[in-house]
């Protein structure tokens, strides 16, 4: 039994006025309000710190099974907890790919054994992520898979994508599409624009992503099936989603912390540091502006990390030889929150927090949306945030196995200090 005293309560969408107390008993939020007392409860006086539903990450590469030297479910779950995420969705681009119910169960069970944040599996849309045959989506959905995606790549052919949407409709599990026309992006290293022109590196044009976005919207419109677009990075991409939403289509999207913070200039300024190599590539400062506008006006539904850890030896190479991917889950919220502060708080903190809580949770099936809300008798998935705590990102202290990140050394505010999953404390900064 834990009693949080003097918390600034955020319910997943809005803040309660003043400070309140909240009692957690047996994994459940028993009650909250003024002057809650519970004899025998451990008391944590938050002194006005924010108490929010735990964050939900829709997009996390845990590299397990198959690439455990980069990350495994245990290290990823511990890293998620330290980042304030009480739930993280594991991407299926593993070896073997998570494309059947046995592997879906493997991910869930390994996550439970790890005992940190809750790990939910995403299943592949196609067998072995080859984009040829549908994976057993029904069996995977029954086993507890919460998203379908061939992430790392788009769904192979438009025809197969259309079929997958139709087939998955009755399963109530969303398809999360990584939008990319690979015939345009193949061999590309950086944003096609200033960076490719100055660096002499092959560019990945914005159109490669935007054609993928358009394809997904068009197929969603025609089939009437929801689709989620992940890691959007260009002005036109979010503009297409904005229009689709106006039209009433069930199209949703997320953006990543790094696309909100870093531009293609970082690649040049860092002298081609491979920490800045990611797909989709870091774009122009105008694209960054467009993503912040899309956060403000509700076009974006969630911020998802696309946490993509690599072993130091694999990532520490000359830029063109290094793999794509940025590790960030342990500093994702502080990273975005600090940008939001530096931009003069362009919208409410409630909106920003919703993008980490109710926003992503609402895209998951079954009971999971309720985990993004803070309700009486709801599951106690919580995070305590110290908005005034300033720390430098220190990658060598990470629970993740990643040891390179563009966030390294940046001084950020808004750190999670305690993360709870169903009443269990899975991260406590005071004990670190």
């Amino acid at each position, binding site marked *: 039994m834990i009693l949080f005293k003097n918390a600034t309560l955020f319910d997943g969408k809005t803040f309660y006025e003043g400070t309140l107390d909240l009692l957690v008993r047996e994994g459940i939020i028993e009650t909250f309000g003024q002057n809650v007392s519970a004899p025998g409860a451990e008391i944590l006086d938050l002194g006005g710190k924010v108490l929010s539903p735990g964050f939900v990450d829709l997009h996390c590469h845990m590299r397990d099974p198959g690439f455990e030297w980069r990350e495994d479910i245990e290290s990823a779950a511990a890293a998620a907890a330290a980042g304030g995420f009480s739930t993280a969705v594991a991407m299926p681009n593993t070896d073997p790919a998570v494309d059947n119910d046995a592997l879906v169960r493997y991910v869930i069970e390994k996550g439970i054994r790890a005992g940190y944040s809750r790990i939910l599996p995403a299943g592949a849309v196609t067998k072995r992520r080859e984009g040829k045959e549908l994976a057993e989506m029904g069996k995977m959905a029954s086993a507890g898979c919460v998203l379908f995606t061939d992430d790392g790549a788009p769904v192979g052919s438009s025809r197969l994508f259309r079929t997958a949407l139709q087939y998955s409709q009755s399963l109530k599990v969303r398809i999360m599409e990584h939008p990319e026309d690979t015939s345009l992006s193949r061999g590309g290293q950086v944003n096609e624009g*200033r960076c490719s022109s100055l660096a002499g*590196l092959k560019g990945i044009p914005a159109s490669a992503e935007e054609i993928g976005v358009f394809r997904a919207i068009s197929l969603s419109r025609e089939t009437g099936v929801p689709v989620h677009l992940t890691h959007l990075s260009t002005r036109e991409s979010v503009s297409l989603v904005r229009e689709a939403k106006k039209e009433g289509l069930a199209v949703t999207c997320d953006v990543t912390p790094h696309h909100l913070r870093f531009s293609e200039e970082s690649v040049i300024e860092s002298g081609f540091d491979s920490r800045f190599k990611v797909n989709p590539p870091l774009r122009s400062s105008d694209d960054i502006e467009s993503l912040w506008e899309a956060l403000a006006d509700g076009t974006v539904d969630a911020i998802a990390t696309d946490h993509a850890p690599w072993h130091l030896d694999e990532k520490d*190479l000359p830029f063109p030889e290094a793999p794509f991917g940025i590790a960030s889950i342990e500093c994702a919220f502080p990273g975005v929150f600090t940008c939001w502060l530096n931009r003069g708080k362009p919208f409410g903190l409630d909106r920003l927090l919703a993008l980490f809580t109710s926003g992503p949770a609402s895209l998951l099936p079954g009971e999971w949306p309720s985990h993004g809300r803070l309700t009486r008798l709801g599951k106690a998935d919580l995070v305590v945030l110290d908005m005034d705590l300033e720390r430098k990102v220190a990658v060598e202290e990470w629970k993740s196995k990643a040891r390179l990140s563009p966030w390294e050394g940046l001084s950020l505010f808004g750190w999670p200090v305690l993360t709870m999953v169903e009443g269990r404390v899975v991260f406590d900064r005071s004990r670190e």
Partner: protein
Amino acid sequence: MEWKHRHVLDLKDWKREDILFLLDQAKNMDNLIDRPIKKVPALRGKLVVNLFFEASTRTRVSFELAEKLLSADVVNWSASGSSVSKGETLRDTAWTLEAMGADAVVVRHGASGSAHYLARKLKRAVVFNGGDGAYSHPTQALLDAYTAWKSFPNLEGRKMAILGDVLHSRVARSDIQVFRTLGCEIVLSGPETLMPFDVKSLGVTYEPDPWKAVKNADIVYLLRIQRERQEEGLFPSLDEYHLRFGADEKLVSKAKEGALVMHPGPINRRVEIDSSIADGTQSRILQQVRSGVAVRMALLYLCLGGVMA
């Protein structure tokens, strides 16, 4: 003047006075080459490693010559048949070289940014970029500047036309940096498919018509056209390239009288350049080669803190 460039990776941060100082130093070296006994002991006891991951003749030989004329100890380390072909990473190669006591490493590598990478990994040795990917070839640009400067002591306001495959050219990117800093106006020409996507970001303009691009130019700079680019489908044929953009007497006659024709070599006769131009009086192609030795001597001397006897 105090020399503040520790490595020579690119020319992004080089100011006009840095370039002019270097050109002055190169002139001294150039005079040295004319002496009956060319060799000076300026870098005696310094170990320079030439680390070449890509085929190169003129850059490697030019560096080697410059190193030897300054009495440095020279080791050539090429990728084929070395530890690199056994899967050693650039990082480990760098540390190995440093453990052997290298004072300087000249690196040529196919990956843009690899010279920067090497400089980050080396604790002590000075890095000279001998060309990395399509990003930078600073010594080529400086020798081009030196060659042009000998004809035009003031490059301010001069017009330079660069023709060819700018997209894949590290030479073009570096020349643009140097010649712009020296006050030249630069126009690019060539098939649109061989141009960088955002020409403006380079601070230059693009003129699809080579005749207009070359008009009134003081320097006509031609880039090598590689057959691979045709195979990638970026232009239909070498013959069509030659017909539209090849430098012949008619095209060069549009430039200013006495305009310089330059090319980083090796040249493709009857593709980007006709023999009448390559071997003509306006050509500076062989002077560029000679300048290369002098410019590289000056750079080695300045960055390695040599002592002139």
